[in-house]
């Protein structure tokens, strides 16, 4: 690890100012600290959000579940509010990393990092979530912009994520065997705006699968999901899965999500 200065922000404004001046934002640190230890990241200034208690917590506001940016994965997984309103989201959070990662990692950190194999982005995209920042609100569709990039401006910090409660949802994660990130994760939701199918792990960033959505909109059945041919063209091809295998997993995981939702 290279030397760095740790700034522990006590107000959101202070954190934003430090970030605007180029400090790297430290949320749960589950990606950043490992990169720094390996000398792959070399920030001179860190701004730690850990003391900003107002950024943590889960609130049910009408038909919206608002989760503070610094809320830890384990707290989302264990929250009765999440478990009763969007059980698929609690289940998703409970499958991230291992117990140690879930005890430290945060939803805001995960969303801001936009790792192409992270779980949360698929939930945001499928559920039509809104990302709140210190400056504005951004829809999930606008927020995620491919491989580790987002709509956040320099110095802009996520404060919370709001999820409209869907009629039904399921997340099916197929784990990369070594890292246990999503090799392919499929989040299927029946929302007021229609059926949404968001896929993570399979390509350079999270994406909605419109053919699957259309088929399931017409007939929300396993058979309808199975009838869609998944085009492997833009899918990742690496050590752990060929593009063809990822295409197969998108199909199978979608079918299984639908099956789970029909049984619930």
């Amino acid at each position, binding site marked *: 690890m290279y030397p760095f200065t740790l700034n522990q922000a006590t107000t959101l404004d202070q954190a934003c100012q430090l970030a605007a001046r180029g400090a790297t934002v430290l949320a749960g640190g589950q990606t950043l600290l490992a990169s720094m230890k390996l000398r792959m990241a070399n920030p001179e200034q860190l701004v730690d959000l850990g003391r900003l208690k107002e950024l943590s917590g889960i609130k049910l506001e009408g038909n919206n579940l608002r989760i503070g940016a610094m809320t830890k994965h384990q707290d989302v997984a264990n929250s009765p509010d999440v478990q009763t309103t969007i059980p698929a989201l609690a289940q998703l959070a409970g499958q991230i990393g291992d117990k140690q990662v879930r005890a430290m990692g945060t939803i805001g950190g995960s969303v801001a990092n936009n790792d192409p194999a992270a779980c949360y982005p698929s939930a945001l995209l499928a559920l039509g979530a809104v990302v709140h920042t210190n400056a504005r609100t951004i829809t999930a569709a606008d927020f995620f912009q491919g491989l580790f990039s987002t709509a956040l401006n320099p110095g802009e910090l996520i404060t919370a994520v709001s999820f409209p409660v869907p009629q039904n949802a399921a997340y099916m994660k197929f784990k990369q*065997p*070594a*890292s246990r990130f999503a090799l392919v994760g499929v989040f299927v939701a029946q929302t007021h705006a229609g059926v949404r199918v968001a896929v993570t792990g399979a390509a350079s960033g999270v994406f909605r699968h419109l053919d699957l959505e259309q088929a399931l909109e017409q007939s929300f059945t396993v058979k309808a999901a199975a009838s869609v041919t998944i085009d492997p063209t833009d899918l990742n091809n690496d050590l*752990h899965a060929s593009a063809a*295998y990822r295409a197969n997993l998108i199909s*199978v995981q979608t079918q299984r999500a639908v099956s789970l939702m029909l049984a619930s």
Partner: protein
Amino acid sequence: MGASDFAKLPHIGEAVRRKEDYRFLTGAGQYTDDISLANQCYAVFVRSPHAHAIIKGIDLTHAKSMPGVIEIFTGKDLEGKMGGLPCGWLITSTDGTPMKEPPHPVLALGKARHVGDQVALVIAQTLEQAKNAAEAVAVDYEQLPAVVDVRDAAKATALHDVAPDNHCYKWALGDKAQVDATFATAAHVTQLDLVNNRLVPNAMEPRAVIGSYNRANEEYTLYVSNQNPHVERLLMTAFVLGLPEHKVRVIAPDVGGGFGSKIYLYAEDVALTWAAKQINRSIKWTCERSESFLTDAHGRDHVSHAEMAMDKDGKFLAMRVHTDANLGAYLSTFSTCVPTILYATLLAGQYTCPQIYVEVDAWFTNTTPVDAYRGAGRPEATYLLERLVSRCGWELGLEQDEIRKRNFINSWPYQTPVALQYDVGDYLGCMNKAQALADVAGFAARKSSSSSKGLLRGLGYSSYIEACGIAPSNIAGALGARAGLFECGEIRVHPTGSVTVFTGSHSHGQGHETTFAQVVAARLGIAVDAVDVVHGDTGRVPFGMGTYGSRSISVGGAAIMKALDKIETKAKKIAAHLMEASDADIDFVNGEFTVKGTDKKISFGQVALTAYVPHNYPLDKLEPGLNETAFYDPTNFTFPAGTYICEVEVDPATGTTRVDKFTAVDDFGTIINPMIVEGQVHGGLVQGIGQALMEHCIYDRDSGQLLTGSFMDYVMPRADDFPDFNIDTICTPCSHNPLGTKGCGEAGAIGSPPAVINAVLDALRSVGVKDFDMPASSHRVWQAIQAAKA
């Protein structure tokens, strides 16, 4: 004392809790990195980022000027001041020429031959300063084409001048003409091509070294995470540094796992020992995990073709095998004997195959050196044979158990056609017990239940044999070993009756401190807690060959037994004197000396005290003291064997393969601590099933870069990947050592991979898959199913 009397002693067969666990579980273990010496500084190695490159120049100007830098050494600084790293086993090619033995410089000279090859040693006041300076070392590389796959080696750019076609040796065992003739007339021949996937050892504790030098007495002390400190010292002093052995002390303190990867003399060990004198400071180097992936000797990496000739009833007549073995970029310490001596001699397995011919070509590639890894040659042999045997059965329409039973050896001793003579065994007994424990009878019902859920279920067998405790030394020497294979033990009885045992075996997770204490406590009739075991220090232990090849109890334990015999003989003389009887009339049972035909008795403690306070003592005939040392050189290998049965369930939609049941019945001979044995079996099974299902070290075929260089890509097995294991044992005691033990450390890793893959193939046969290589990852299984559909 004979093995059958030994097995009946108290404490033998008792699940005594491990004496070492308190310190390990409470963080009180003392591993090399936990030790810090006065005036210690830190080392970092600059490593080649290229798989194959000419080192055109190294510019140290900037790096040497950086804060805290004490010294930087490159290969040129070491040239002429030390030898290269030696190989401990000479293999002679079929044409009578010795293997190609290229130089293995401690720091690269002129060329780097694999990613991670050490190019410079940077020493600084702090670790961070050493890392910073290492980044500032400017190496001018000219890249060369790299080869990583053993099948590409012959046509690739040469790594070493002495081996222009990258060929190290061609070695063979058996009568080719006779075997070929049998094949020509056989009723049926089964053939199989297979790959034994390369593995990264990944001991929990990475390697670590502290080199230090004392100017006052000109003595070196090397702390190193190592499995055999005396061997380390011998190789380093005699072959590399030319130092007097009595001036070098090697300490391998608590060591967190080795699995073979810490047997070897590594460049870092030598470099720090030498450099400590140059800078007159103690120097610490602790390997990081990503560095371990690149530099710890890897395991396996064989490509083989195997054939079995049979009569019409499936009786084996002859076997023919060709193997290409990947040795990596340099010859690691025992790399050359793994795909030859330790491999070919196991190919008879548990079967009466009268003729075997095996040929091995060994190659250099631009990869990390390959050497012995848990099982060392024996897993490769077992995987090949047990896969072949199951296929023989399938081709002849025989069940996997039936083809094995038709060919099992059923009388002992049995002389195999590949040099080994098995002393005892009961292969059918193991098979029968395993089948009952695995509920093979209920398999059909379980298969049909899986089928109703759209899942494929398969059953796989493996009846393995292994050879532990390479021996005897003179035969090993004739076969090319450049070391002895005995063990040493010293028993020091203290005046108050407690005992310190000094053993040349080294425990790095095996629980010797408990098992060996049980042996001594049982023999002397004292409490297990009254016995402490010291190991891993050339300054305290008289000599030792270390721990590998499941040899510790059968060779190291036997040396302790011999020393105990001497203790008992002397103690009886002291007791005879005290009780005014003749030596021949003294019995020693349960810690008490008695005189035959009388009620006279005296305790072991009284005899011990008398030995050191010799007031009433036959000083004219007997030396005071009660301290004995013995060396033991075994007369034969020991032969643990067993049958493993694996049941898998495959989801054809995703290829996901789950081990649902795993049954292991082993014959380890006498068992001293069944809990420790069970732990060893669990660990071995996890490593073997890990190889079969997930572990796979992959290099990029073009660039030679290690693609699975961290736990993000190299799939380490985890607890939730496994079911509860069904484990049991049978016992046919080893006939030629005083304990009757055979060794249990590697069995699980040797026997399990073919059981898993046979089960996978059994499951996939119904969807048309005929062949499959490890690992059975979801992706690979799914691809095999798709290929069979096409």
